[in-house]
């Protein structure tokens, strides 16, 4: 938590100095990358499927009001209650209020990034409600008292050794054997009675199905169904961009979502939840509440970030990001890390607080290449840079340096002179083919050699050569 008070660069340096973190990141993202690559090799239809997925999301966003109203109508008809929240605070207040109205002492939660985004874990804790995270990774995060570091593998920053130690300390009947299997078993034993004794279940939604009013969750562990079936009340929180026209569209999205996230063809458990328990049902909640959350999404529509609303939270962009793979997720300081987080966090926290995120990117484009809905993440990041520049948030030295560069670059004759001089200065500091100890080059030369320039510029030599012909 003290992380939050450090600057981005300080957080980054601390992460870079942590060898255990790097091992943990490599193990999870490396596996994810390999599995995705294998899944792609078995799915030659991916490019077409991805294009379709992109168009489905674009269609929904272009007709968002229509689909929101259709969803609301159908959800109410199914017996659900629908709430709207413009901000994160409103959303978590609605959920806490519903929990209190239900007299909830214990709530079970299914991992939902939106829940994190609206600060729900914190709000529930503040309200004195016993919050049980049921996703294994979120359980590990809860035991560790920290925050998710990845949107698909929230506890990716923990090595097996660290998890083992935590489980031994906190579980009632911890594992004896040092295997991941035994640890998973320990969590299974620990959480089983909690599932069954909760008063309220809270989940997110991967999709909202407009033509039925159903919400869809996908998990591999089966914790969503174990969470949402026994309690008397089930509350869903979902961003307004989660809509799809029908189940068929959700299926088309699922095919690219799951392959991009874990490399599987489909999640082990894909469940559509439609309203509360029906007459004759053997189990299920009596009350079903859906909270539709804006929290910056309509602002993204207005401010040229419509394409980001396609995001289906698969995590592929971060698994393939060279920066994320060095830093892990906590350094990003927001709910969402990696490339998509660098686009989203300034929306939630303001650009001034998070201007480093869009800048700490090499613009290599890999994230866009793997994104299952083809979001132009580098372009969106550059959009933030553009705004940061216009709003005067960029440091003076950078503005000055670029200003000087542009001044010369627009004046070829002066530019030639400046280049010739720069070369000569650099050569003054050159030894053995590299530049050493030259003021202004420290950021580069602290870590690697700076190859020395040749004696004269291309243009100088070219003129001589051609002139002499």
């Amino acid at each position, binding site marked *: 938590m003290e992380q939050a008070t450090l600057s981005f*660069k300080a957080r*980054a*340096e601390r992460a*870079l100095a942590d060898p255990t973190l790097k091992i943990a990141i490599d193990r999870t993202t490396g596996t994810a990358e390999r599995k995705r690559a294998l899944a792609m090799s078995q799915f030659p239809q991916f490019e077409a499927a991805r294009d379709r997925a992109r168009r489905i999301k674009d269609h929904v966003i272009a007709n968002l009001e229509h689909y929101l109203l259709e969803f609301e109508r159908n959800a109410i008809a199914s017996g659900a209650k629908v709430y709207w929240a413009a901000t994160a605070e409103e959303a978590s207040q609605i959920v806490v209020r519903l929990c209190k109205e239900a007299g909830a002492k214990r709530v079970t939660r299914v991992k939902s990034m939106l829940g994190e985004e609206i600060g729900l874990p914190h709000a529930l804790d503040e309200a004195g409600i016993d919050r049980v995270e049921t996703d294994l990774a979120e359980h590990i995060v809860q035991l560790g008292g920290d925050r998710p570091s990845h949107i698909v593998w929230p506890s990716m920053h923990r090595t097996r050794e660290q998890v083992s130690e935590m489980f031994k300390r906190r579980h009632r009947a911890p594992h004896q054997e040092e295997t991941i299997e035994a640890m998973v078993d320990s969590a299974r034993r620990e959480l089983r009675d909690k599932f069954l004794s909760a008063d309220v279940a809270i989940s997110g939604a991967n999709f909202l199905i407009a033509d039925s009013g159903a919400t869809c969750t996908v998990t591999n562990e089966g914790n969503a169904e174990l969470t949402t079936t026994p309690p008397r009340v089930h509350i869903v929180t979902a961003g307004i961009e989660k809509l799809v026209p029908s189940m068929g569209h959700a299926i088309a999205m699922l095919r690219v979502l799951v392959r991009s996230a874990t490399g599987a063809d489909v999640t082990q458990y894909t469940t559509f939840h439609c309203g509360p328990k029906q007459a004759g049902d053997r189990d299920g909640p009596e009350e079903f509440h859906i909270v539709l959350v804006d929290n910056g999404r309509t602002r993204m529509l207005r401010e040229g970030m419509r394409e980001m609303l396609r995001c289906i939270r698969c995590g592929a962009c971060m698994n393939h990001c*060279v*920066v994320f793979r*060095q*830093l892990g997720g906590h350094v990003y300081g927001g709910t969402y890390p990696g490339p998509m987080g660098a686009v989203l966090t300034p929306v939630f926290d303001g650009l001034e607080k998070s201007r480093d995120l869009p*800048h*700490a*990117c*090499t*613009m*290599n*484009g*890999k994230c*866009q*290449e793997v994104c299952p809905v083809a979001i132009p993440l580098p*372009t969106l990041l*550059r959009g933030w*840079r*553009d*705004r*940061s*520049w*216009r709003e005067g948030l*960029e440091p003076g030295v*950078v*503005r000055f340096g*670029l200003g000087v*560069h*542009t001044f010369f*670059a*627009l004046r*070829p004759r002066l*530019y030639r002179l400046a*280049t010739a001089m*720069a*070369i000569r200065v650099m050569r003054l500091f050159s030894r*053995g*083919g*590299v530049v050493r100890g030259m003021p202004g080059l420290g*950021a*580069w030369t*602290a*870590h*690697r*050699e*700076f*190859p*020395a*320039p*040749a004696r*004269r*510029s*291309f*243009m100088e*030599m*070219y003129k001589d050569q*051609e002139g002499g012909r």
Partner: protein
Amino acid sequence: MSNDRSVSSPPSSPRVALFVTCLVDAMRPSVGFAALKLLRAAGCRVEVPDAQTCCGQPAFNSGDTADAARLARHFIETFEGYDYVVAPSGSCVGMTRAHYPEALADDPAWAERARRLGERTYELTSFLVDVMRFAPADVKLDGSFTYHDSCSGLRELGVHDQPRALLGKVSGLTLKPLEGNDVCCGFGGTFCVKYPAISNAVVGEKAEAIERSGAQLLLGGDLGCLMNMAGKLKRKGSAVRAYHAAEVLAGMADGPAIGEEG
């Protein structure tokens, strides 16, 4: 990319403007001369417009769109009059092709000029292969090389097969594949000086992969990335030597490698 011209024959002695790029101009002129030699060998009438400076990438990527637009206009005015524009860099060509229209979006007439020029602007190896159907003859270099695909060339321009096809014609030279050949080297233009610690961690992993390849030479098509990787390799005390692919293809890899005493 490489297939769309498979039916048409190469243009005969087109008038080609060589954009050497600001980095090659200042740091490694031999890459520019290599490009010149290759283009001439491919039958082009090559000119090096005197007014050329920088494509504006640093400004654009720093968010300074207004200055980037100014430099874009300067570039367009300088190069518009030629049949083709060629540069020994994927990222500079990516800038002109993919990003000039963005930088000039507020000015439709200029954006249109940018688009039209972009269509005729090529990265060197893709121009040689895709447009000129050129293959180097009688180039010999004994040794093994590994190839890093710089990100802009790869993802914005589809440059991947072309340099390999050309290098495959150099007798005595064998390719040793690079694990993660399409993974960014951590250069990122201004990124590497704005976030040096992160950049270092990324290029550190890249240097390890290069060494694992077992190749004697590291080749690539973008000088910025090459300076970053060569600088890291050198700091590590590695024996791998780095050249721009054009230098090898032009038979000019007998001089000092990047970061070697010249």
